[in-house]
């Protein structure tokens, strides 16, 4: 029995009027084609998530201070897990770019199957978007989930101001999702530009690691920092000064960018004034002034970081569409 699909009468009125191939069907093509690579990546993410869940439950349920000494201190478990997570999690966007993004288009071109795919009814742009977007969405969900789990894992183990430190900020749910998206999109674009799988993977590795390193070095200042007077300094016999740890994370203080001695009106001391004796500081009510990002901005900064990374990813995918549309197979 022969059946033409879809039924001739359902879409065709007159001479050959058809709409575009439906997204749902193209997405099913993507899933069928890339299920092995996706399954491997998801399995890796599940292993990381499971490790985080198990160690998190043990650490949170230990009932003792993680940082305390003693035979029953979970410090060792915390140390090993924390170090491992800080190494593995930032690599996940790189791995996504390397093993999912770069081969996505490059392998099709290299193997010649692009000549098959691009000559079918769906067309190049639709095929590319149907291939890239579902994988990107899956990666974003994975990253956001792992980011949330990592925040839960850190919760009560680390003070909230540590969420701001460069290495940990990118692991917050939204920035992590943004970096995942950017790593993947970069891989896709380099794959389409270089048109060879292994060189595209190498390029993705270099670019992603460079980007992650620069991000690590980068003090996020999406909004101008605030300043406030903190505690009175304490002075040692040698002439040095300090201030109590408890005042570091005062109410609303998220990330301390700088601390400096200053007059009560906020003007900071000059270098020569710093050499006065302790009595002079006390007599003039010299204070510690903190330049900081308030803790309430964490969510906003996460959104901003995700936003620009999402825009960057959209530009990279847009560039890939142009490359694919204009390029040869």
């Amino acid at each position, binding site marked *: *029995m*022969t*059946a*033409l*699909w*879809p039924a001739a009468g359902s*879409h065709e009125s007159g001479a*050959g009027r*058809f*709409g*575009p*191939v439906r997204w749902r*069907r*193209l997405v*099913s*093509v993507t899933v*069928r*084609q890339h299920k*092995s690579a996706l399954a491997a990546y998801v399995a890796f993410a599940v292993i990381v998530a499971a490790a985080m869940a198990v160690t998190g439950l043990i650490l949170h349920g230990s009932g003792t201070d993680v940082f305390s000494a003693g035979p029953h201190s979970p410090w060792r478990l915390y140390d090993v897990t924390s170090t491992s997570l800080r190494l593995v999690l930032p690599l996940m966007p790189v791995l996504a770019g390397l093993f999912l993004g770069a081969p996505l288009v490059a392998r099709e071109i290299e*193997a*010649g*199957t692009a*000549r*098959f*795919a*691009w*000559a*079918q*009814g*769906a*067309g190049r742009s639709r*095929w590319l978007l149907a291939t890239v977007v579902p994988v990107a969405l899956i990666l974003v969900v994975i990253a956001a989930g792992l980011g949330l789990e990592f925040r839960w894992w850190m919760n009560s183990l680390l003070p909230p101001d540590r969420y701001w430190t460069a290495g940990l900020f990118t692991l917050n749910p939204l920035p992590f999702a943004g970096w995942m998206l950017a790593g993947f999109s970069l891989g896709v674009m380099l794959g389409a530009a270089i048109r060879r799988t292994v060189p595209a993977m190498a390029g993705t590795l270099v670019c992603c690691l460079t980007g992650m390193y620069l991000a690590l070095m980068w003090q996020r200042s999406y909004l101008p920092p605030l300043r406030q007077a903190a505690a009175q300094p304490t002075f040692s016999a040698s002439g040095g000064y300090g201030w109590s740890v408890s005042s570091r994370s005062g109410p609303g203080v998220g990330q301390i960018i700088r601390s400096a001695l200053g007059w009560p009106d906020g003007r900071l001391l000059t270098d020569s004034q710093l050499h006065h004796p302790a009595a002079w500081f006390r007599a003039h009510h010299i204070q510690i002034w903190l330049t900081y990002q308030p803790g309430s901005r964490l969510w906003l900064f996460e959104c901003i970081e995700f936003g620009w990374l999402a825009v960057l990813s959209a530009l990279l995918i847009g560039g890939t569409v142009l490359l694919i549309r*204009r390029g*040869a*197979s």
Partner: protein
Amino acid sequence: MNIIESCELGRRFGRTWALRDCTLAVPAGHVVALVGPNGAGKTTLLNLAVGLLRPTCGHMSVLAGELPGSPTARRSIGFVAQDAPLYGHLSVADMLLVARNMNLTWDDGRARTRLAELAIPPDRKVRNLSGGQKAQLALTIAVAKRPEVLILDEPLATLDPLARHDFTSSLMVTVAEDDLSVVFSSHVVSELERIADYLVVLNNGQLQIAGEVESLLAGHQILTGRGGEQFLDSHQVSVVHALEAEAQTHVLVRMLASEGGVPGWQSQPARLEDLVLSYLREPGARMLPGPTVAAPGDSPAVPA
């Protein structure tokens, strides 16, 4: 209706012209053989026709005015690329499903029946199929789209003689069933006569011959005689290629006059293989009956 029209079409890769000054009109309803040696520009021309490449210069349209690669063109043209690239890691059944989901029209029953007739197991991975089976699967996918035109790039190149015969036989059955127009490229000239009724010869990126096989053969003869080709009356024939030996000379000529032989020369009808090989050996020779092609924007061209 012309299924392919081009006007001064050219495509350059770097500094090398793969195709240049190609003005062509291929009418519908034929099995067209696109012949030429390696590097002649056959694949370039076909890739331009299916929209996988864009021309460097000139204009091309398919299916009477459609831009190559446009949605209508993609829907109406079934294409099998060189080496029949398919997803090797998928099973045959999954490959059919993928192809079905990438197209607007799909005759699933026909695809499955065809594969069953060819004894291609649906659960076998595509990479484990033989060359002939892979070519047949690619043809099945192209045909299941129910296209108006089938474009095949070197479908016979990697096949052994038996698989080649099976492939061409099943192709001819499909053509007869569906009233398809077919354009296929090949440098295997020995089997053309059995399949093709329209011939296009490309050489060094330029068009040499275009026309119906019957009229091309009727317009050429092989002359055998003593003496060189210079003894031929240039008013009656145009020498395409001469093979001079000590005893006699064999010359493929294009007949300028419709009737009559050449005195002193023994004539016999040209075979397609002789004709193709003679033209390929003389890249400067042309036999273009002059299909008129409209300039871009004009009404569709009318074949001569």
